[in-house]
């Protein structure tokens, strides 16, 4: 009889939800009661909305328990493991019993995330047992030449998953063409987009797949040194990468004459980023690795010609590298089966915002946005009205509900004015104010602008001022036109992607939600009831019981009225803090 396995999901989000304590508790009972089961760790499987997750695999099948805490863990162990009766009410996914989320993975195709949530990321044997390091072994065993490796990546149609969408094979070809003896290979793990966390999940859940992708990349371009530039905000990812690098060295996947391929030496190290969004841009990243302020450089020369320490350098994103071993093992044709004509394969999305099942999904390109939100994401929280989805973070844009039939591929998304970006998908409902969202992103890019180009440095600041004014009820006629004018100037006058894309959130919200801007400016109203300074609070006389709670709490004493008599708000004194609204127990305060 196979031993029962108990697997705890210990990714960053799982730990934040309390998985660490669950693991400790399970360990404690296992030892205290001398129970016979194997306790294992894994990382994020993507069902973040049900974290902490504990999977039990026994001889009858797999049972995934969701929202487990220490107390539930006790109960589950006692009922399931000791008495062999699964606790159905806590099960979120299973191949044995019926649950609501059993079809969560239908429609998903896991290539980059193929091992996330299935293996212990700190154990190289588990990676190898699921086909890990087979790709580099295949290259060594079948003596596949450099040009053939590049050709299969080209044929697969893989494009840069960091957001740019540049064909990976082509990038490798350029770097390979250079005859320099010294070349570098960099992995961009500076995932800065707020609302995106897929790179973190891959690094935490399957670090070896990234390493193997880098080793193949190094073979293809002829690099002997590699750097993983990872955000310092991801301590767990850095820890697991360090373990993975050590294990890979011990097994001879890194070092000299790797797998007896003559003259193929490659080793790498981790460089911790220090918190600058602009370092996601490749030339800024290179400046940062060199120990300078992360300011972008002029291109050309492109990094493939002159990059790190002025040597030819190839930079790819985490998710791109994670795809590489799969493509080599399974063939370019197999990969190109998924997706659309110009965007092949799959893409990982981080589904967040006002969505029921927030988490990580990997879908084939060509699926519609609507399907992702409703079929995988389960729809909007509290079944409110779906308003828009934000793609591509601060460089992207908002796609309105009526365009939700847009398919996910680089060109279709670009046509809406948004960009694919790294894969953050923030869902917004009717209570989200689009002007405020535009202001939010501008605030971010304004803060993160490195200051090199005047248009980006000053222009974003001016745009932010206008947007702030609009959300505070000080909007003027002509503001929208001014915003548009500034937006195009910033796009044209900036050196790097940050400035060239920073106005996108403003431009797309103006394009699709112009009426909201006009309501703010002309009518001084916020249709989503989000911008505080534009709201009016009023007491509904019929509902007010005169309990005096609002009157006592009002910081400016704008509320008057006797006990047990309807109260009244003096609009000339009210500062719209919303305190009365949140304190009223009888829903007798109206906001409009």
């Amino acid at each position: 009889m196979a031993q029962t396995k108990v697997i705890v999901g210990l990714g960053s989000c799982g730990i934040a939800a309390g998985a660490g304590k669950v693991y400790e508790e399970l360990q404690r009972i296992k030892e205290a009661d001398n129970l016979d089961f194997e306790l294992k760790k894994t990382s994020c499987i993507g069902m973040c909305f049900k974290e902490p997750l504990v999977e039990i695999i026994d001889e009858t099948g797999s049972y995934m328990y969701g929202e487990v805490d220490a107390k539930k863990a006790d109960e589950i162990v006692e009922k399931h493991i000791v008495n062999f009766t699964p606790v159905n009410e806590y099960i979120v996914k299973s191949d044995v019993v019926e649950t609501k989320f059993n079809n969560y993975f239908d429609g998903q195709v896991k290539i980059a995330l193929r091992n996330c949530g299935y293996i212990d990321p700190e154990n190289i044997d588990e990676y190898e047992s699921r086909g890990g390091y087979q790709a580099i072994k295949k290259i060594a065993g079948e003596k596949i030449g450099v040009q053939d490796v590049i050709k299969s990546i080209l044929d697969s149609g893989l494009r840069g998953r960091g957001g740019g969408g540049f064909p990976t094979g082509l990038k490798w070809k350029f770097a390979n063409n250079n005859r320099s003896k010294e070349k570098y290979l960099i992995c961009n793990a500076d995932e800065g987009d707020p609302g995106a966390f897929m790179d973190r999940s891959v690094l935490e859940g399957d670090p070896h797949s990234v390493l193997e992708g880098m080793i193949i990349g190094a073979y293809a371009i002829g690099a002997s040194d590699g750097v993983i530039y990872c955000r310092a905000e991801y301590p767990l990812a850095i820890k697991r990468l360090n373990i993975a690098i050590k294990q890979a060295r011990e097994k001879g996947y890194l070092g000299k004459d790797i797998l007896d391929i003559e003259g193929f030496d490659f080793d790498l190290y981790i460089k911790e980023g220090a918190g600058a969004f602009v370092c996601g841009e490749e030339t800024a990243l290179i400046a940062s690795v060199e120990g300078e302020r992360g300011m972008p450089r002029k291109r050309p020369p492109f990094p493939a010609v002159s990059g790190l320490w002025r040597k030819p350098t190839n930079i790819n994103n985490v998710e791109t590298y994670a795809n590489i071993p799969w493509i080599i093992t399974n063939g370019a044709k197999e990969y190109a089966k998924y997706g659309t004509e110009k965007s092949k394969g799959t893409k990982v999305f981080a589904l967040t915002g006002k969505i029921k099942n927030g988490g990580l999904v990997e879908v084939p390109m060509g699926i519609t946005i609507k399907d992702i939100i409703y079929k995988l994401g389960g729809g909007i929280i509290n079944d409110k009205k779906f308003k828009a989805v934000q793609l591509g973070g601060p460089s992207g844009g908002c796609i309105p509900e009526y365009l939700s039939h847009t398919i996910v591929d680089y060109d279709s998304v670009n046509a809406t004015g948004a960009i694919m970006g790294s894969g953050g998908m923030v869902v917004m409902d009717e209570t989200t104010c689009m002007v405020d969202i535009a202001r939010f992103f501008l605030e971010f890019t304004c803060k993160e602008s490195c200051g090199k180009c005047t248009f980006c440095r000053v222009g974003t600041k001016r745009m932010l001022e206008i947007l702030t004014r609009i959300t505070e009820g000080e909007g003027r006629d002509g503001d929208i036109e001014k915003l548009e004018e500034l937006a195009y100037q910033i796009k044209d006058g900036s050196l790097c992607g940050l400035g060239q894309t920073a106005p996108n959130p403003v431009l797309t919200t103006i394009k699709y939600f112009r009426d909201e801007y006009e309501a703010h400016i002309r009518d001084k109203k916020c249709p989503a009831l989000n911008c505080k300074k534009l709201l009016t609070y009023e007491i509904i006389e019929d509902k007010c019981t005169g309990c005096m709670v609002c009157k006592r709490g009002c910081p400016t004493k704008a509320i008057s009225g006797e006990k047990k008599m309807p109260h009244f708000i003096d609009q000339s004194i009210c500062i719209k803090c919303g305190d009365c609204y949140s304190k009223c127990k009888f829903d007798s305060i109206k906001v409009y």
Partner: protein
Amino acid sequence: MRVTRINKKEPALKAEAKVDLKLLEPLIKKYKSKKGNLIPLLQGTQSLYGYIPAEAMMILSKEAGLKVSDMYGVATFYAQFRLTPVGKNIVKMCHGTACHVQNAKAVTEDIQNFLEVKDGETTPDNLFTLETVACLGCCSLAPVMMIGDETYGKLNGKKAVEVIKEIKRKETLSQKKSLTENISKN
């Protein structure tokens, strides 16, 4: 005529911050001759002291041959580096997109009102520093804050203030305890 410099005063930090500069030695030894060592050196310094003291920069400049102006430039460019001491607990309030649409602003306002500090400031008792950060990567638990290594998710203003109150209570308790212990010892 020689130009006299306006700032003749000794930098204030020199007087107030008494840090053990010997701690820097192993760090300098490790990175001294490496290419691109400026950022790792500053990161190492910050992890030793919680911030980058001015005199540490002087030592780094002398021992590792780096320019103070370069170090200052880098330290003020990246969000990670701090040039002033911080409170015992750093409250990192996430203002990423997901947290923003789930009303992180209101939570921050409540924390600010409770602690009576603004973003980036430290409370007078040196217990808390409030920082707003771009994204902690726990978007599905939004709004999120991080205190020390602990992450707290699905917050509202009340919940967040409760958490901070609890930490404050424990801190004052342990302070009192050590105080009474000291008294009884004496």
